[in-house]
């Protein structure tokens, strides 16, 4: 065994990784994104990995902790990966119980380095939301563009009224307000990430009652309902989230998708391994990946390039630059005691 170890030490180490999904793959969002990143790493021969789907319902919650304990106890893995804002408390318990085991948690800001064996990656979805807000606000009165009306109303269909979603929202609202103070944002929550039909009803109401012509869906699969509403009425555009929905949609829906806000979980995981191999580690730290690090971003090829007038594109790119260089600091809804997002949301509701 010792000869193996020295031999391996010569090469780059092949890590054995387990990824715990507290939901299911196929979300076309961060779990799939994480999976894609791991797959790429495995294909490159840098890791071996196993993904465990633990299910995402409240009834599945006991499994999350149990499974964490199980994989930590197994001691076979160089790194245990999990994600989402629902995991930190469980992780804290297990990471404390197994101080020699390394963990990574993504898409969470609340863990914040309680254990020296955990690296915590988060994504500045508020920054990304800001760019989308700028884009939408700039577009909504561009009547030269097909389907756009003069009314300055855009829509936001959220999966539920809670901090992560509202972190997207607050960026969106701020971006829109900064671009055009007259813009109204019709915000509604489906209360479910799977009820496409209700999301569709809400989007239809936004389009028909309030003349919204751009709708950002931040509601998992429910978001598709909003896209369909836009397509069917022929009076609005859709903006996707998490992954590039112009690629995942069929041609019709992709055709009315202006862009997508990206949360690059996979990229960030690859980035961590790059850093690790390069000798830079972040154990015990929160790594908040923003636009600069490629943790978040917006899709700028396809419809963004083809549909948006140059002036609009420039505004978005300028905002991106400003955020990157720190000129613009986007507030966050996470850990915000004042709940500023609610006041802003109500103020901008048409």
């Amino acid at each position, binding site marked *: 065994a010792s000869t193996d170890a020295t031999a391996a030490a010569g090469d780059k180490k092949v890590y054995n990784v387990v990824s715990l999904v507290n939901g299911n*793959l196929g979300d076309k969002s961060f779990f799939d994104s994480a999976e894609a990143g791991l797959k790429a790493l495995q294909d490159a021969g840098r890791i071996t990995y196993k993904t465990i789907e633990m299910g995402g319902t409240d009834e599945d919650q006991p499994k999350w902790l149990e499974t964490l304990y199980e994989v930590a106890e197994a001691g076979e893995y160089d790194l245990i990966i999990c994600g989402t804002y629902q995991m930190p408390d469980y992780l804290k318990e297990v990471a404390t119980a197994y101080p020699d085991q390394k963990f990574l948690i993504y898409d969470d800001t609340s863990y914040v380095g309680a254990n020296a064996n955990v690296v915590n990656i988060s994504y500045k979805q508020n920054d990304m939301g800001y760019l989308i807000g700028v884009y939408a606000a700039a577009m909504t009165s561009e009547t030269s563009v097909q389907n756009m009306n003069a009314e300055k109303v855009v829509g936001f269909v959220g999966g539920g009224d809670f901090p992560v979603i509202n972190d997207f929202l607050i960026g969106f609202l701020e971006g829109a307000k900064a671009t055009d103070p007259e813009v109204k944002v019709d915000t*509604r929550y489906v*209360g479910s990430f799977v009820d496409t039909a209700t999301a569709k009803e809400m989007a239809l*109401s936004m389009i*028909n009652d309030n003349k919204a012509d751009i709708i950002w869906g931040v509601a998992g699969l429910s978001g598709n309902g909003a896209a369909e509403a836009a397509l069917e009425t022929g009076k609005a555009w859709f903006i996707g989230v998490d992954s590039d929905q112009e690629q995942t949609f069929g041609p019709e*829906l992709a055709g009315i998708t202006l862009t997508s806000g990206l949360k690059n979980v996979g990229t960030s995981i690859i980035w961590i391994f790059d850093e690790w191999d390069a000798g830079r580690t972040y154990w015990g730290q929160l790594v908040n990946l923003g636009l600069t690090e490629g943790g978040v971003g917006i899709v700028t090829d396809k419809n963004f390039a083809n549909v948006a007038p140059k002036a609009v594109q420039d505004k978005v790119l300028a905002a991106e630059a400003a955020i990157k260089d720190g000129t613009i600091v986007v507030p966050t809804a996470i850990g915000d005691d004042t709940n500023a997002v609610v006041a802003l949301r109500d103020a901008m509701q048409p």
Partner: protein
Amino acid sequence: MWDQLLSTILKEEFLFSVIRITAPILFAALGAVVASKAGVTNIGLEGIMMISALFGVLFSYWTQSWLVGVLGAMIVGILLALMMGFFALKLKTDIILAGIAVNMMGAGGTIFLLYMFTGMRGNTGSLMSPNILIPTVNIPLIKDIPILGDILSGHAILTYLAFLFVWLMWILLYRTPLGLNIRAVGENANAASSVGVSVLKIKYIALALSGALAGFGGAFMSMYYSQGWNSGMVAGRGFIALAAQAMGRGEPVGAMFSSLLFGLAQALRTKVSGLQGVSSYLVSSIPYVVTILGLVIYAASTIKRVKKARAEHSKAKA
């Protein structure tokens, strides 16, 4: 704020959406009606809708025909209902448990089936394209009537079918021998079997009808309401349908009005959620609160009516 709400409600589009929201619930509610008339509580409607919604998409994708998709969904609905029937009627599994089992299959089993058939996870992505969606139709004369035309015309074929089924269901139950058998079996199975009516057969038929209707409801969900299937998309509509059935006292027309009431509440919720400063959570509970209230008012009025009738009746005698 209220005038804003009012202005959105006083639109044709609002009533149009009420009808659209009602349709899938109505299908399932009629399914609940026919099953309960035969003495079977079909609590598995939710699961049947989920599974047939999935197969509706798959069939229409495979054949590139919406019609085949809808029929496929219907057949899957029938098969599931018959399976429930086999266990509940033949093997005497508690019907509620059989229903829960079907709902389980609808929740997780669908994801597994989708994976088995297509390798996709969680949703059917772009399998469903607009050209194989259930088409909408404009009704020739009605569409030109102001207001009414905007409310009644332009719905999906299946929407009209749902309301047509209310009438057909009534005919079936009250004007055909099969309906007579169904009612007899549901009310007194011994009586039916003593005259040579096969209770089992009738219950199977009623369940199959129930499954077919839920299948239509499922197809409506994934092939019109949404373009494609995703896990959890039926989101409790099968249960709501049970409520509609009960609130409508198990009658087709009653179930239709209850379904409409629910559709109305749900449409209202959509509108109210667009107002400033409302809690999306409390707003989301509107349809359910309305259903309970509807049930209460209905029950209370029934009691009152009975009491009043009695009072008048004694007065007349005095």
